[in-house]
């Protein structure tokens, strides 16, 4: 009998859970009771631990500043604000839908919307 998951591939749903936990900590929203639930979640499976470590690693490698102003923050915000609500996100693990306005971050012609 095989015990545990195939090596190195946490289930997509677990990655989504790990991401949610990670952001809870970023938001400072993990109080005493949530902390116990987090510990419980970590202990449930090595896959959970692996997923959380992966998320932490990915986060650490994201740039934490933009000294040269490469990203046009205000146009990004403006675009985000007029975009339709995206609460219904594609399910975890499925290929994300192609953004209709790919060049989101580049200064350039405004999107047609």
């Amino acid at each position, binding site marked *: 009998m095989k015990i545990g998951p195939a090596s190195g591939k946490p289930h997509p749903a677990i990655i989504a859970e790990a991401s949610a936990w990670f952001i809870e900590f970023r938001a400072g929203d993990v109080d005493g009771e949530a*902390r116990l639930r987090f510990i419980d979640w970590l202990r449930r499976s090595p896959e959970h631990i692996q997923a959380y470590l992966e998320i932490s690693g990915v986060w650490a490698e994201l740039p934490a500043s933009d000294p040269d102003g490469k990203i046009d923050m205000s146009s990004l915000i403006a675009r985000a*604000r007029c975009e339709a609500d995206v609460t219904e996100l594609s399910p975890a693990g499925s290929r994300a839908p192609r953004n209709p306005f790919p060049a989101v971050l580049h200064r350039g012609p405004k999107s047609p919307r």
Partner: protein
Amino acid sequence: MGVPDNRSFVAGVAARYGSRLRRFLSVRLRNTADVQDLAQEVFLRLLRVDGYESIRSPEAYLFTIASHVIQQHAVRRSSEPTAVDIAAVFSELRTSSSDDPPDQVAHAQRLTELERILDHLPTRVATALVLHRVAGYSVQEVGDELGVSRETAKKYLARAVEHCRNLRAAEGDTTL
């Protein structure tokens, strides 16, 4: 051996020095829940002392015993497995390399890489990530900026970081 006499001796010491003993213990113990147990042990040892009549200073004697009890308690403690706050360890992972002084070339590369990643995401999700991670907005501020609730801002951020990870996994760790 005058056991009854010994008892009244200990009772007298307890009445006189009991509260001082507890203070003595509580400032020396990390866990105040242990104070009562150790005070008990000090008095039990005092009960077992032979020839209490020859003790000149019951006070000094009491606190000498107390010191021994604390020492032995510390030894017992250190041989127990250390309890680790696993949640604290894991939550600390969140900042890791962002505190390092950025290598400029690598940093520029990461920004370009981020732009590429974000192309695959709905604009709000992408914007939430950039505001929070790159521009340093708090989760609440991200929500305010996008005109959504704090909970929704968290969903966007979770979705974004999940996407970053999945893209990285799909590309076999060669980029980002």
